[in-house]
């Protein structure tokens, strides 16, 4: 989820800006704006305040990863969260939220645009009518920052104002990243003797919980790209799921090998719905692209 703290309406200083809070992986570097490009500041007095000036795409020598805000297509946010699937990419990039009057409310930065939009839709539906999305394909710190800055600058140049949601002290969009649910552990630890075989623990787990994802790493810090993608999809669907870290030898000792036998499936991650194996990352991704996940999770 993107957060912007202490953005003064006159001067954006690098030290106080945090456009980016990482809700998921703790091993992604923290995005901070002390950039190699030097302090970034905007001084409003120099911005043209003619009301009918059309926003011109800014001539830039830097190749930007995203189109200008003006050139980007506006996507209406569906009322029904069922229709959400496939509308927004669970990818990294920038996004701009518009209210029903077409006014820009907030420009955010996210590692999972779909999840961020869904979350805003839930918390401030009246401000979240349509969205422009700019996926950044090779999302290193610099590229992401540039993209976000470019949209902010473009808007400020065109309107003379910082989007209300990005203003200093505004907490509508800014909040602590919601604390993610803890991963499920199969046992209290190696020191405790199992009274049930691991196979039975697994069986009970998948039958008692509607959606279970066996992943490498934790949901807040997945340790492989396939597991990360699965978590990304589950989060953007807003589905309530349990996650189990198959690499946690302290609490889930023996899980890896037992699960492979149990599912008759040799790789991780593995996703179970209603007690049945749905498949791995490829299958979940394919279902997501085809819009099949809504009905899968409703069963």
């Amino acid at each position: 989820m993107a957060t912007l703290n202490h953005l003064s309406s006159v001067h954006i200083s690098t030290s106080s800006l945090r456009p980016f809070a990482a809700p998921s992986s703790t091993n992604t570097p923290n995005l901070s704006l002390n950039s190699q490009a030097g302090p970034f500041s905007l001084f409003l007095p120099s911005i043209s305040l003619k009301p009918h000036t059309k926003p011109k795409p800014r001539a830039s020598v830097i190749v930007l990863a995203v189109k200008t805000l003006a050139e980007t297509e506006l996507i209406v946010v569906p009322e029904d969260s069922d229709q959400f699937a496939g509308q927004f990419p669970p990818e990294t990039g920038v996004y701009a939220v518009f209210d029903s009057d077409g006014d820009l409310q907030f420009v955010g930065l996210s590692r999972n645009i779909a999840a961020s939009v869904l979350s805003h839709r839930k918390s401030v539906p009246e401000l979240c009518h349509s969205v422009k999305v700019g996926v950044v394909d090779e999302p290193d710190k610099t590229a992401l920052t540039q993209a976000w800055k470019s949209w902010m600058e473009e808007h400020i140049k065109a309107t003379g104002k910082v989007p209300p949601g990005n203003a200093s002290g505004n907490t509508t969009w800014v909040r602590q990243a919601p604390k993610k649910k803890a991963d499920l552990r199969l046992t209290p630890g190696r020191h405790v003797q199992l009274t049930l075989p691991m196979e039975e623990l697994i069986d009970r787990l998948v039958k008692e919980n509607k959606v279970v994802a066996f992943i490498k790493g934790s949901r807040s810090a997945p340790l492989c790209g396939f597991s990360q993608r699965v978590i990304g999809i589950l989060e953007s669907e807003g589905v309530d799921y349990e996650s189990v870290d198959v690499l946690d030898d302290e609490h889930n000792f023996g899980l890896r090998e037992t699960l492979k036998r149990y599912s008759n499936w040799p790789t991780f991650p593995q996703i179970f719905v209603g007690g049945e194996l749905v498949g791995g990352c490829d299958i979940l991704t394919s279902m997501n692209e085809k819009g099949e996940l809504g009905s899968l999770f409703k069963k």
Partner: protein
Amino acid sequence: MASVGGVVSRASRMRTKLQSALEAIVLEIEDVSHQHASHAAMKDSNAQETHFNVKIVSPKFHGQTLLKRHRMVYAALSDELHSGLHALSIVAKTPDEQSS
């Protein structure tokens, strides 16, 4: 390259097995182990040939769910999966799906 230093590569073994078990019309196998060399579970090993992308078009997939198709691929590669093959990205299509 079918062999590395005189030893038959995993990719080439995979090709043989998938070809015979699944009568593949199209078979593309790509070793992407280097893309995963830095993630946690791989850090301590020097293993190569651990992660592959497989694209396979076979008439045997007709009428099978994605899950079933993946299981068929895994079954054909069972030995490899027990000897260091960690992960597969699988695209499994029927000839009709491939051309549509």
